[in-house]
C-alpha cells in the first residue's frame, strides 16, 4: 500500500496505527435451523417457529442439519480456506432468558473451517486479509424489554438458527478496509448462496476488535472488543471513536484495559460492558449429545464441483474477455445480482455501452430510488434493446437518455417509446442538408463571422441544427454536412 493512503491518527508529532480484527456472524441460508426442523423465515409472529428442541424441553436432543454443514464448507471453500475433516461441537454455558438450553452449541477448539483469505480491492491496489477460522453455532432468541413495563418478553423464533462465525486475522488497518472487507465477504457469500447478507434483518453482524500502536511498532497494543455492531457505518464510527479513546488514554499515560465494550450509536462512543475480570467463564466442553463431525473428502469434492464463479475469478474474466478496466470490473462483480444483470444485457448488446449504461444511468436511478439491482425498474432485456438502438444509430445517446427516463416507469419497451414519440434519429443526409441550409440562411451574420476566423462558432451551428431537428438529427451527420457547407 502506498504511504499516502495509510490510515493514521495524528497526535502532536505522533502517528498512531489502528489494528482491527472482525468476528462476523453470518446467518446461514437454510430452510431449517442448525439442530431442529423449525423454519428460519424472517418476520414471523413471535414464537411461531419454535420446536421442542429450540425451546429446550426436557429430553430433547439436537440433530445436525446436514445442509448447514454443507453451507459452511461451501463458504470455507469460497474463503480459500482449509476444511477440517473432523470438527467438534461444544457447549458454551451461560444463563440468559433468551438462551433456552442454558448453553449455546458452538465450536471452540476444533472449528469446521480453518485458515483462509479474502482479497480486498482498494483504490491503490489489492490487499489480502487473513481468515483465522469459520465455525458453526446456534443463534440465541431475542429478549424484548420495551413492550411490557414489568416483564421482559422472549421471542424464540431465532433460537437455534445456524450462524457462521468468521474470524479475521488482525489484518485490517482502516475503516475503509473494514467497509471493503465486509462488502467482499458479503459478496462471496451471496455468490455462494450461503448467507443473504441482509444487515437490516440481522443476517450479518460483527464484533469488532480494535487496538492502536505508534506507527512503526511491531507489537500489538491491548485490544478492546466492541460487541454486536450491525451496520458498516456503525462499525466505522465505532472504530474511529474507539481508536481515539484508546489513543487519548495512551497520550495521558494511562493503560488500556482489555475489555468488552458496546457502541452507543446516538452518542457515537463506546462504553464498557464488562472488564476482563468480569469476563464470562463459558465452561466450554464437547457436547455429549453430538458426535464429532466427520467430513469425507468425497463431500468436499462434491461441494467444490458445485462452487460457482466467485467475484475474483469473474473480475479477471471480465477484464480479459470484455476488456473492462479493473475499476469497472470491480464494480460489476461486487454483487452477484449486478454481474448477472450485466451478463444478461451483454448477451445481445455492446459491452462498452452496457458497462457505461449500467454503472452510469442505471446505478444513478437505483441510488436515487434506493433500490437493489434485483428491483431494477428497467429489465436487462429492455436495457439491451436501448443499447442496440444507440449502437445502430436509430437514436442518439442524448435521445437515449430521454427514452431511458421513460422506460423507468414500468419497464417500458424502448422500441415502442421511440416509435410512439417519433424519436427515431434523422439520418437521411438529404433531410439533414435541408435543415442545415435553413440554419445557414437564418444566420448569415454568424456565417460571415465564422468564415472570418471565429472557429468557435461551429458549436453554435451544431446546436441550431440539432434544435431545428427537434433533437433527432444524427449528430455525426450534422457535423459532417455542416463542415462541408461552412468550410466548402
Amino acid at each position, binding site marked *: 500500500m502506498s504511504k499516502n493512503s495509510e490510515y493514521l491518527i495524528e497526535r502532536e508529532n505522533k502517528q498512531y496505527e489502528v489494528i482491527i480484527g472482525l468476528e462476523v456472524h453470518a446467518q446461514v441460508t437454510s430452510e431449517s435451523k442448525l439442530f431442529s426442523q423449525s423454519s428460519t423465515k424472517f418476520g414471523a409472529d413471535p414464537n411461531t417457529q419454535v420446536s421442542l428442541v429450540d425451546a429446550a424441553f*426436557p*429430553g430433547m436432543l439436537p*440433530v445436525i442439519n446436514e445442509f448447514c454443514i454443507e453451507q459452511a464448507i461451501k463458504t470455507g471453500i469460497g474463503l480459500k480456506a482449509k476444511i477440517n475433516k473432523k470438527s467438534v461441537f461444544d457447549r458454551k454455558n451461560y444463563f440468559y432468558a433468551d438462551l433456552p438450553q*442454558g448453553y449455546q452449541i458452538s465450536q471452540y477448539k476444533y472449528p469446521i473451517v480453518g485458515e483462509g483469505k479474502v482479497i480486498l480491492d482498494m483504490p491503490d491496489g489489492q490487499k489480502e486479509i487473513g481468515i483465522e477460522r469459520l465455525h458453526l453455532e446456534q443463534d440465541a432468541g431475542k429478549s424484548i424489554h420495551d413492550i411490557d413495563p414489568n416483564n421482559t418478553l422472549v421471542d424464540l423464533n431465532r433460537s437455534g438458527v445456524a450462524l457462521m462465525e468468521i474470524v479475521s486475522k488482525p489484518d485490517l488497518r482502516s475503516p475503509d478496509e473494514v467497509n471493503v472487507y465486509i462488502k467482499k465477504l458479503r459478496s462471496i457469500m451471496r455468490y455462494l448462496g450461503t448467507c443473504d447478507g441482509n444487515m437490516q434483518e440481522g443476517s450479518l453482524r460483527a464484533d469488532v476488535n480494535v487496538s492502536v500502536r505508534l506507527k512503526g511498532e511491531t507489537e500489538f497494543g491491548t485490544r478492546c472488543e466492541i460487541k454486536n455492531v450491525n451496520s458498516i457505518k456503525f462499525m466505522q464510527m465505532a472504530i474511529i471513536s474507539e481508536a481515539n479513546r484508546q489513543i487519548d488514554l495512551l497520550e495521558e499515560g494511562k493503560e488500556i484495559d482489555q475489555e468488552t465494550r458496546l457502541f452507543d450509536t446516538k452518542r457515537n462512543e463506546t462504553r464498557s460492558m464488562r472488564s476482563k475480570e468480569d469476563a464470562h467463564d463459558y*465452561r466450554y466442553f464437547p457436547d*455429549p449429545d*453430538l*458426535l464429532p463431525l466427520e467430513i469425507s473428502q468425497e463431500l468436499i469434492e462434491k461441494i467444490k464441483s458445485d462452487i460457482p464463479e466467485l467475484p475474483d475469478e469473474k473480475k479477471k474474466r471480465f477484464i480479459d474477455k470484455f476488456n473492462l478496466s479493473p475499476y469497472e470490473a470491480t464494480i460489476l462483480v461486487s454483487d452477484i445480482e449486478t454481474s448477472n444483470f450485466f451478463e444478461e444485457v451483454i448477451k445481445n448488446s455492446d459491452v462498452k455501452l452496457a458497462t457505461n449504461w449500467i454503472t452510469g444511468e442505471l446505478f444513478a436511478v437505483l441510488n436515487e430510488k434506493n433500490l437493489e439491482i434485483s428491483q431494477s425498474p428497467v429489465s436487462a432485456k429492455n436495457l439491451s434493446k436501448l443499447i442496440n438502438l444507440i449502437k445502430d444509430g436509430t437514436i442518439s445517446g442524448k435521445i437515449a437518455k430521454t427514452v431511458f427516463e421513460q422506460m423507468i416507469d414500468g419497464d417500458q419497451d424502448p422500441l415502442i417509446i421511440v416509435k410512439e414519440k417519433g424519436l427515431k434519429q434523422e439520418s437521411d443526409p438529404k433531410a439533414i442538408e435541408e435543415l442545415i441550409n435553413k440554419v445557414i440562411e437564418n444566420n448569415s451574420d454568424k456565417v460571415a463571422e465564422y468564415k472570418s476566423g471565429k472557429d468557435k462558432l461551429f458549436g453554435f451551428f451544431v446546436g441550431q441544427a440539432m434544435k431545428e431537428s427537434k433533437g433527432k438529427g444524427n449528430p455525426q451527420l450534422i457535423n459532417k454536412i455542416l463542415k462541408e457547407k461552412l468550410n466548402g
Partner: protein
Amino acid sequence: MSDITSQSLFELTSNIKEKKLSSEEITKAFINRAEKSRKLNVYVTDNFEKAIDQSKKFDSNPNLDFKLPGIPIAVKDLFCTNGVRTTAGSKILNNFVPTYESTVTQNLWSQGAILLGKLNCDEFAMGSSNETSFFGNVQNPVGENLVPGGSSGGSSAAVAANLTPVTIGTDTGGSIRQPASFTGTVGLKPTYGSCSRYGIVAFASSLDQAGPMTKNVRDCSMLLEVISSFDQKDSTSIDYKRNYYSKELSKDIKGKKIGIPKEYRVDNMPDEIEQLWKNGISYAKDCGAEIIDISLPHTNYALPTYYIVAPAEASSNLARYDGVKYGFRSPGQNLIEMYEKTRSEGFGDEVKRRIMIGTYVLSSGYYDAYYLKAQKVRQLIKKDFDDAFSKVDAILTPSTPSSAFKIGEKTNDPVSMYLNDIFTVPINLAGLPGISIPAGKDKNNYPLGLQVIGKPFDEQNILNISYALEDKINFKNDISDWWLSE
C-alpha cells in the same frame, strides 16, 4: 393359575395370547394391589383410570401379534410421557406435563403395552437410594425402612412388590443394576446407543441409558427386544442389527470364556459378597464356561472419573431448568434473582451438590486438571475392557459392594453413598452392556446381585449367561407383603 400380579411378563403375555386372561383383569389386579401398597411410595403419578380405559379398548379388539399385548407397565418418572406429568423426581418439574413421548416408552405402547403410572426415582436420577426424590423415599419391599436402591428405586421396588409386571429404568452409573441388586430383581443396562435417549430427562448424556427391570432373565430379554431401537432423533443412537433377544435366549453357555477381574476384590468387601462371587464362578463352571482371571488395571480410577464426568454434563444439562419456559418458577425482582430463587428452591441438595461439582470441574483453570484428565482416564478404562474382551466373552463381578442399607443411614455421607456404584460405573464409562441378576442373600436375608458385563452390542451373550446362572442359582425372593393395607 398363580396370582395375577406375581406372574412374569412371559406368563402374562402367554395368558393373554391364550385368552386365559384379559388386559382389563390384569390391569385391575395391578391397580388393586397398588392401591394397597401406598406405603411403599413407588408412584409419583398414577395413570390408573386411563389404564383401565385402554385395557378395555385393547380387549375389545385385541392384537395378539404385539409383543406386549395389553400388558400394563409403570415406568420410571424420567421418561417423558405425552399428557402424563413427568417430574424426574424434582420439585422443579412438579407441574410439568410433556406434549411428547420418549422413544423408549413409545416403543412399549407401539407393542400394545399400557401406561400404569410414573415411578418414583432419585431427583434427576442422582442418587443410590431413592432418598433424593422430592416425592419422598421409597420403601424396599424386601424389608421395612430399607432403601430400594437408586436412582431407579421406585422401579425396582415396584417390580419386587408385584406392582408392575416389568418396568424400565435408566442407568447412568448403576441406577438400574444397583436397585435390581437391592431388591432381588433383574436389571440390564444396554450398550450406549442401544436405546434412544430421546425424551428421557437427561442427567449425563454420555452415560445415560434406558434398560429393562424385570423379575427374571427371560422377561428382561423380551423387554429389551421392544425398547432397543435405532432412532434418528438421538444422534448417539447406533444403527446396528438388534437380536431377537427372547427368541435367541439360550442356557447353553458351554465354552464361553468368563473373566474374573482381580481389581473388583476391593478392600473391606464383606465376606458374603466374596462368597456370592465364588458361588457365581462355580455355577458358571458347572454350566461349562471357562473361567479366566483378568485384570482391569484402571478400575480404581473409575469412581473419581465418573464423579467428574457425570456432574460436568449434569451441570450443563440442568441449566435449562431456569423458571423461564416451563416447570417451577419462584419470582424475583430481576432475572438473576428469579434464577437464584427458582433453582435454590426447585432443586434438592444432591442435585445442587452435583451442579456445583460439575461447574467447578469445567471452570477455566480447572478444566484441564479435572474434566480433560477424567476424559483421558475414561479412555484408559475403556481400553482395559477392550483388552480384556480380546481374551474373554464376558466378565462376572458382584453388582454392589453391599446389600440394601437402612433409610437415612448414608444420607449425610455422600462419599459412602457414591461408593455403592463402584462396580457399576466403569461399565457406563466404557459404554458396555451389563446386567445384574439376583444371586444370593446376606445374613439379614437381603438380596445380593451378580453382574455380567459384555462386549458392546453383545446383550444376547450376557442374557444367555445370566439365563444359565439364574437356573443354577434358583433365587427365591421371599417378600412378606408387610406393607399391604386394606
